[in-house]
């Protein structure tokens, strides 16, 4: 009750002494950043590594992701490639530019274009994909591609992290590619094309920004794709020891 008196006093003061108090017309619209969608950027190298194969092949590999946007719309540049130190050539070089929107609590849809510009013939694809977190903590990234010539393919990327400690993390990854039509020129046969399975043990050295790792990677080609590789004098199955770092800015 004791606070009523000062309230009345202040009300009277407001009326008599501070005209500003009366002018509710001055009420303003919130145009501050708080009222704007939060804009976020990120830059990440999921993989940045050196690979050494069981037949002495040396390869540099990266898998990078840059994005900018809001909760509702992000622009994303995904870049990945394999550079053979022996042949001094890109075995694969892939860049995707996609727009990304949320479609469910845990998943986003992506659409855009993919440019493949490795040593040899180039390809351009339209991309449609989903990415997100599946139950039991599987990070999923699945995409459908259609080339200018109408060749279609799909890939699935799944990843799972096992925490030995909160700093020592074992990451298991599976990458599988399926083609719905043959593209002989780039060595792709119809059906399951290839898989890449990796196990990487990382340590978070600086926050989650720099996490060096060692690991093993198994690559394999299947069916017609394997036959094409053999015909071209390439290998169909490789084991790699890898050393690298996961970087996040």
């Amino acid at each position, binding site marked *: 009750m004791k606070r009523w008196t000062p309230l009345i006093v202040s009300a009277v003061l407001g009326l008599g002494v501070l005209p500003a108090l009366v002018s509710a017309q001055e009420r303003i*619209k919130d145009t501050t950043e*708080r009222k704007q969608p939060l804009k976020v950027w990120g830059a990440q190298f999921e993989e940045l590594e050196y690979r050494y194969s069981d037949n002495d092949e040396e390869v540099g590999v990266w898998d990078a992701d840059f994005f900018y946007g809001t909760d509702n719309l992000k622009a994303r540049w995904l870049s990945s490639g394999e550079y053979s130190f022996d042949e001094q050539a890109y075995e694969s070089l892939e860049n995707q530019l996609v727009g990304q929107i949320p479609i469910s609590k845990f998943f986003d849809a992506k659409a855009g274009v993919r440019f493949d510009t490795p040593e040899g013939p180039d390809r351009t694809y339209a991309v449609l994909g989903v990415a997100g977190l599946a*139950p039991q*903590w599987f990070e999923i990234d699945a995409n459908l591609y259609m080339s200018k010539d109408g060749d279609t393919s799909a890939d699935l990327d799944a990843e799972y992290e096992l925490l*030995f400690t909160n700093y020592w993390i074992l990451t298991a990854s599976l990458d599988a590619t399926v083609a719905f039509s043959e593209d002989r020129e780039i060595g792709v046969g119809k059906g399951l094309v290839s898989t890449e399975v990796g196990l990487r043990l990382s340590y978070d050295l600086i926050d*989650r920004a720099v996490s060096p790792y060692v690991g093993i990677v198994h690559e394999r080609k299947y069916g017609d794709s394997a036959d094409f590789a053999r015909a071209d004098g390439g290998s169909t199955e490789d084991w790699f020891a890898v050393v690298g770092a996961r970087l996040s800015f």
Partner: protein
Amino acid sequence: MKKVLVTGALILLLPTIGLAGEYNLTVDRVEIDTGEFVKEGVGYNGESPGPVLRFKEGEEVSINVTNNLDEMTSIHWHGIILPFQQDGVPGISFPGIKPGETFTYKFPITQSGTYWFHSHSGFQEPEGAYGSIIIEPKDREPFRYDREYVVQLTDKHPHSSERVMRNLKVMPDYYNREQQTVGEFFSDASENGFLNTVKDRLAWGDMRMMKADVEDLQGFTGLINGKGPKQNWTGIFEPGERIRLRFINSSAMTYFDIRIPGLNMTVVQADGNNVQPVSVDEFRIGVAETYDVIVRPKDDQAYTIFAESMGRTGYARATLAPEEGMEAPVPGLREPARLTMADMGGMPGMDHGDMSGMDHGDMDSSTEMAGMDHSQMKGMDHSKMKGMDDSKMTGMDHSKMAGMDHGSMAMSDGGPSDPFYAQGSGLVPEAANGGKFLSYADLKAQKPLYEEREPTREIELRLTGNMERYTWSINGVKYEDADPIRLKYGERVRFKFVNETMMTHPMHLHGMWSILDVGAGQWNPIKHTVSVQPGTTVYMETEVDAPGQWAFHCHLTYHMAAGMFRKVIVEGGPESTQATSSEQSVDVGGDA
């Protein structure tokens, strides 16, 4: 007629004229040294925390705030009842204070107690822009003390706040280093059985929720009055003295559990308002809350003020000692907190029937019963409460209801419980010495501030979010997409907070008091910040007695920035009715 009014105003002015204080604050770039790391930040009058502002009830203050930054700034007087133009929220109360500009806040002080002030611009507050306010009451206080100290806590992180926000958006568990590991799986398996542990992990994995998701921001150094644990802020006392400690939690994100081993604390004030004294061994202070406690150390020895974070990932430490340089042992951190299925109880679309088997992993058989019962009750509970509300529920006694639930549902005492936590929650605090831990249910107003009356309406605010995307919202809508909440001057609104997330949210309504329903009727405590624990429903009532527009938000810095924020417009009021209509036209056009 006019003459009479002027005379009247003058007469009313007379007592305040003698109490007109002028204060100066500069907003500056400062260096903050935590003892662990040194960081650039923002402070007042050249330091962080800023000064203690001492006001007197009845005083008319003018505070000149000079912005020495190269960006906009503002000061919000947290918990102070004042005209909305003086409330200091850019975009809501005023445009903000430009670089180089001096803005003069002017308002009458109509209350007393412990409060604080902070910037409401960008991330300046977590960067160090905060200070404390002590208001001396006009009347004698209902408790005695010989000495007083402000004990202002914060959670200083080595990363800039911009970076923290971005990291949380990119990877919501970026700072969580208490996640469950392979090792924890095996220790749980040996304790609760392999199959139960697998079931438990599958249940959480199915929800894509983490038991360890208690604190978004780990890796901070807890500061007390700007001093890190190594720097050890020390308050001097003479044995036998009564010391009033004015605890203020100015953290960006961290709830602290506070104890002073060897001393009982008598809580006499919460959020600046006197409460009926409660003697406790430990209490939890939510972000932006204040608690005043009185301690009486009788021995000629040092005592440690130990403030452990709710998730047990960090702490702040200070000392009360008869002489500078004396120290008492610093306790270790307790086991990291783990959420339980009960804390998920508020999430929509959860299959409660499925949950009974899943609590096995983290509860012993007695608690498990309680947790199970609770999860089954949850739905019932709410619907029952709602029904009761509609009829007449002002004097609803939460503690009694919880007691009822215990009695009828739980087979045995399942460890600690608190009616303001979900039954079986992993966050229910326990005093380190096994003694009394303060609950909201213990808070009773010393003197009712308002006459008790029925609320005129109820507004439900569901506290919502998506942890994987680090989006936070109210009723599923972020501030950027939200319309203002419109209240009418003179009404008494009952707010119903339903926490549908697994995080604790300290909800802060500017400009008007939050009367927290602890079931004590007219003795319900008066607060400015109300913590809503995961999986719980909390009610508060507000006498809508302050015209204008106000901010209403979660006081966790990064939840607020990610959208858990509303503008509240109080329509009508003593000023004029046309003001309201013109404001409406402005707002409907622009703000929708």
